């Protein structure tokens, strides 16, 4: 038995789109061609499709598992799907494009390395294309793959492909994305999805699956700025570990090495890393996104919410923070409302001091007149916190640059934000 499975990387990608742009067909094809759909699942989906009077097998029924979704034929919530090829394991966050679209798209995008954008070759770039692309850029998804789908319906025309590509590129110039690829496909016929199309010899690039398998994602993590938010302190009550005081957490950025000089924030005390522990033994270095336990050479008062960093490279420590905020909740905030702001392993009380502008996610226009906060709004706000945050800009680090707001009355997550 070979061990290739143990050498695979994980790629998380997000898709968004409307019902008829071929998204389900495309995902279905990726799952089907990679043998990730089982026979009894397919049987079930076929039976359900027939019961609903459909003349085709609706692969959306694979994960539209909730009663209401199946009855109404809609996807309510982000659906996660999994498939693997010998090279990589993939997690798809499939996000529905209606009602709570911002919430769903932002949620799916928050952990993605790559966004898959589908454009119907007959219609070109539409409002939803822009919306999804903008959110991908806002959430700093490193790679965009734009699939121009239904090429079979435009005679596999190179001209159509080039025209849409140019149209998209002129819009994308306004976005903050650096790696955009275009692939002409037909999800239905299978052109350029897994196999190269015989109908589009003019296209010299890779197929979608090849792109997903080979796109370079190793440098998506920040391996420069060392950040270790402490989740909890481990103090064994066994005699043999009497003086053990370990700081447990997941590296959010950078590479920590045994012997490194570190500072503890917000206190500012400095020490050295004595050891990095795992159950299978000590290790010499830990990097994002590893979960480890560190011990320091000095006894320092340090607990959950604190952050271990390198002495010469520190995050900004402040109680004033500017945030791009996505509002998820049906009701906007009460005037002068206080929230619990969760950031890395830290929790503080926070208040929105000022709404600077609201962003129209279809046109990217900044609206400074209508500053009323409603569901699906994206706004730039100034927030004041009761205790300092150890923060980076979201551009620099997605984990130490992101926050959520929790309503203290309902405990709901009402908004998510990226630190500017």
């Amino acid at each position, binding site marked *: 038995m070979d061990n290739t499975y143990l050498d695979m990387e994980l790629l998380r990608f997000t898709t968004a789109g409307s019902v008829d742009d071929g998204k389900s067909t495309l995902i279905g094809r990726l799952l089907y061609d990679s043998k990730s759909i089982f026979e009894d699942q397919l049987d079930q989906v076929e039976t359900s499709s027939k019961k609903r009077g459909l003349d085709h097998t609706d692969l959306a029924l694979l994960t539209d598992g909730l009663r209401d979704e199946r009855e109404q034929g809609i996807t309510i919530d982000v659906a996660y799907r999994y498939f693997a090829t010998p090279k990589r394991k993939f997690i798809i966050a499939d996000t529905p494009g209606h009602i709570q679209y911002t919430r769903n798209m932002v949620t799916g995008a928050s952990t993605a390395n790559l966004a898959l954008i589908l454009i119907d070759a007959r219609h070109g770039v539409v409002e939803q294309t822009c919306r999804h692309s903008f959110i991908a850029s806002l959430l700093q998804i490193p790679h965009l793959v734009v699939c121009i789908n239904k090429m079979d319906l435009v005679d596999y025309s190179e001209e159509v492909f080039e025209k849409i590509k140019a149209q998209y590129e002129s819009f994308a110039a306004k976005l903050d994305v650096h790696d955009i690829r275009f692939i002409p496909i037909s999800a239905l016929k299978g052109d350029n999805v897994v196999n190269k199309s015989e109908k589009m010899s003019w296209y010299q690039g890779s197929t979608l699956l090849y792109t997903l398998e080979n796109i370079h994602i190793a440098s998506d993590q920040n391996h420069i700025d060392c950040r270790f938010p402490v989740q909890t302190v*481990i103090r064994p009550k066994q005699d043999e570990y009497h003086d053990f005081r370990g700081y447990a957490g997941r590296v959010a950025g950078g590479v920590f090495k045994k012997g490194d000089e570190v500072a503890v924030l917000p206190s500012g005390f400095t020490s050295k890393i004595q050891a990095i522990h795992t159950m299978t033994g000590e290790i010499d270095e830990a990097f994002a996104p590893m979960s480890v336990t560190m011990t320091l050479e000095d006894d320092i008062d340090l607990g959950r919410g604190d952050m271990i960093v390198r002495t010469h490279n520190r995050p900004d420590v402040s109680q004033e923070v500017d945030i791009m905020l996505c509002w998820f909740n049906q009701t906007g905030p009460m005037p002068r409302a206080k929230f619990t702001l969760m950031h890395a392993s830290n929790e503080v009380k926070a208040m929105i001091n000022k709404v600077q502008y609201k962003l129209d996610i279809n046109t990217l226009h900044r609206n400074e007149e209508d500053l009323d906060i409603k569901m699906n709004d994206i706004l730039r706000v100034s927030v004041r916190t009761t205790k300092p945050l150890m923060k980076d800009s979201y551009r620099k680090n997605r984990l130490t640059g992101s926050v959520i707001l929790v309503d203290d009355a309902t405990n709901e997550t009402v908004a998510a934000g990226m630190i500017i």
Partner: protein
Amino acid sequence: MSKYNLTHLKELESEAIYVIREVFAQFEKPGILFSGGKDSIVVTHLARKAFWPARIPFPLVHIDTGHNFPETIAFRNDLAKEIGAELVVPLVQESIDKGRVREETGKDASRNWLQITTLLDAIEENGFDALMGGARRDEEKARAKERFFSHRDDFGQWDPKNQRPELWNIFNGKKNFGEHFRVFPISNWTEMDVWQYILSENIAIPSLYIAHNRDVIRRGGTWLPNSEFIKLREGEEIVNKKIRFRTLGDITITGGDESDADTLEKIVAEVAAARQTERGNRADDKRSETSMEDRKKEGYF
């Protein structure tokens, strides 16, 4: 692969350990829902890793239907002893004796639904505010919609249409008094990931997963193990087959597959070639198209 890059299994492991530590940090009295199946065994293993060298800071909570495989119970007791974890074992039989639930009757009666009441009562009696389980999003379509941190109201119910969004690695475990959370650290794992992890970490599992000879009955397209709870129906006979189980539930509802996979390596190869989902042999999932969702809304695992 570059030097600073994790394999997918290591990344999934690291994600799960992070989630388990969040549970410890955010809740007062968490526990692990331990069924004796491979998924809850993996969660328990990950919890040990998360707090090493300290002992696992959670009790193992096993809802005992009384319809267990004897191998599962033996395995559970040995594991708890080995890792020094407290065992909490609420009994479905006790719920029946107290009149909290009534035993199902009829042809396909099982204690599957009954354990929901036992579980919810145990949560209240023990004051658990978070229970971790081994459910995965790939195993069932209602579970595909689960959050890592899944809120339950004070009736223990799940409201799938009103779940909190989960972004980056920030988990909101805030709740009112009387409410609790179910937490699923291995949400993003597939059946294949679980087996590969068991193989690479050399984790002990109940012998039921390994191909063995057993007295079985052909029923509902699967090999149902013979036990004191089974009554033979007309035309059925007890035969001895070499089988293994892909999932473990109650002995009354868990069917096995004929198999020669008697090592972990062979099991992994079998899983890789499988064309049927692992829960395909579970009678509890077959009651209706949305039976898992219906049970989950009431408070099921």
